[in-house]
């Protein structure tokens, strides 16, 4: 078996060996409960506070604004439910979001609609962007929260977060952003970019799964999502996942060290892939090629179905993902691809590859060699291919 080329880093990433090394003592000798008084408990507590400092530093935040959670989805749920629960008493029952958020935000907003809140779903344009102007025009008297993703998980488009944040702050409205895909790929500064709440996830940046962060600006009030003990300054109960938190701290320190260099290197490899794959006839790039996450590649190939494409790439040792309905178990293809105006039949034939700094020139050359062959093979089998205009 040849080497596996992992090009699904937007789904998850391998743990960095330096992260694992930092974590291991907290899975072995420093097993104490951080809430305990004795030394092995205090060791664990100190480690959590070090991680909190590492995260705060990465975003230009204060340590007391960083809360560890069970992952990106929990952070999104907490930001939306927790803020609106308290804003309701002030008559603020309106939320503004987009129609191409991650499900953790989209489904939470749908839940809020069921519970009497009003949600405005801003459409994105065909390049995959929303504008600050759209947000401004949607703001009403009773708007309490704007929640817009920093960068899209499927097509990688980076939203004008600072501009949106500025509008929100002028109007006195809370601004939350899901930055799960953005962290480590974009310079984030919560103060300069006017962000009140920001969600991130550990396992997208070479830390383990099951740990995330919600940044909550000082003064922003949230009701608790998880009730119980006094952990996380009484705002998120549950004994801390110490080793995972330590891992997240180390991982964010590592990944924010050299963002410009990484963007430069990874974009070059990704642009090579776009250039090569665009030679395949009847293909299209989904989303803009500017202001896009450096490792994100998303293309559609007519007359080919996405899941079959993934299986065939897998037979060739390449791991990717698709917006095809067949990978999700539902009838509809990716809501993101439909949001940027793709017809169903084109959206079914989409491929997302997400590369990173560990991807090599050799890897992208192998992908560029295999991709036209597997697309061609599936088209030979397809009753649709030779009937296209």
């Amino acid at each position, binding site marked *: 078996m040849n080497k596996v080329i992992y090009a699904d880093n937007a789904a998850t990433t391998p743990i960095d060996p330096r992260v694992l090394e930092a974590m291991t003592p907290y899975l072995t000798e420093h097993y104490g409960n951080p809430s305990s008084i004795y030394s092995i408990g205090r060791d664990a507590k100190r480690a959590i506070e070090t991680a909190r400092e590492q995260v705060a530093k990465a975003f230009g935040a204060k340590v007391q604004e960083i809360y560890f959670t069970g992952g990106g989805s929990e952070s999104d749920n907490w930001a939306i439910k927790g803020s609106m629960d308290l804003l309701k008493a002030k008559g603020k029952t309106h939320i503004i979001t987009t129609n191409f958020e991650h499900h953790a935000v989209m489904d939470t907003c749908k839940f809020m609609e069921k519970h009497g809140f009003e949600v405005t779903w801003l459409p994105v344009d065909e390049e995959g962007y929303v504008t600050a102007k759209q947000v401004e025009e949607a703001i009403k008297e009773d708007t309490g929260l704007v929640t817009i993703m920093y960068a899209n998980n499927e097509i990688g488009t980076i939203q004008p977060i600072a501009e949106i944040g500025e509008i929100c702050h002028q109007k006195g409205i809370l601004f939350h952003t899901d930055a799960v895909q953005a962290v480590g790929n974009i310079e984030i500064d919560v103060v300069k970019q006017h962000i009140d709440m920001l969600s991130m996830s550990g396992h997208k940046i070479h830390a383990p799964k099951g740990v995330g962060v919600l940044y909550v600006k000082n003064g922003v009030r949230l009701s608790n999502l998880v009730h119980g003990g006094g952990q996380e300054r009484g705002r998120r109960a549950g004994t801390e996942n110490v080793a995972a938190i330590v891992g997240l701290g180390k991982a964010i320190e590592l990944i924010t060290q050299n963002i410009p260099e990484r963007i430069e290197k990874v974009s070059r490899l990704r642009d090579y892939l776009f250039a090569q794959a665009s030679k395949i006839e009847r293909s299209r790039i989904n989303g803009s090629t500017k202001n896009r996450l450096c490792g994100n590649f998303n293309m559609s190939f007519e*007359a*080919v*179905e*996405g*899941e*079959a494409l993934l*299986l*065939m790439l897998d*037979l060739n040792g390449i791991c990717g993902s698709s917006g*095809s*309905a*067949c*990978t999700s*178990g539902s*009838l509809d*293809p990716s809501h993101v691809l439909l949001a940027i105006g793709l*017809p*169903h*039949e084109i959206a*079914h034939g989409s491929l997302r590859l997400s590369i990173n700094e560990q991807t090599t020139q050799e890897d992208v050359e192998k992908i560029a060699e295999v991709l036209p062959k597997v697309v061609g093979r599936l088209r*030979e*089998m*397809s*009753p*649709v*291919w030779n009937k296209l205009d």
Partner: protein
Amino acid sequence: MLYSEKVLDHFANPRNVGEIKDADGIGEVGNAKCGDIMRMYLKIDGDTITDVKFQTFGCGAAIATSSMATEIIKGSKIEDALKLTNKAVVEALDGLPPAKIHCSVLAEQAIKAALANYFEKQGLDPTPLVGEFHTDCEACHGCH
């Protein structure tokens, strides 16, 4: 999504892929909006299916069920091919994930559609011979 070894084998090495230029019966089911289209070609001699080919646009399970269904009916009597159920195709593939059962339904319907087309060409009314079948998303009980 866990596919059986047999599904993966029929996906990676599909049997009977292609077209039959002078087919005696052709059936097509599904639509591109749903993401699955199957087209079956039959060559028939007397009461026997002597050759069968398929073309499929769809997921791994759609390709594997097409392949398995053609393998089962190749060389069989028309009356036996008409009795082929989607369940039999699923069993022959050592099972399918629940979300993929509709692909086996499409394979069964594609064979029925091709046989109906053959009967029509013979000047026969296919309805009493083939029974009810669907060529569009109705074929797909798994879809909601």
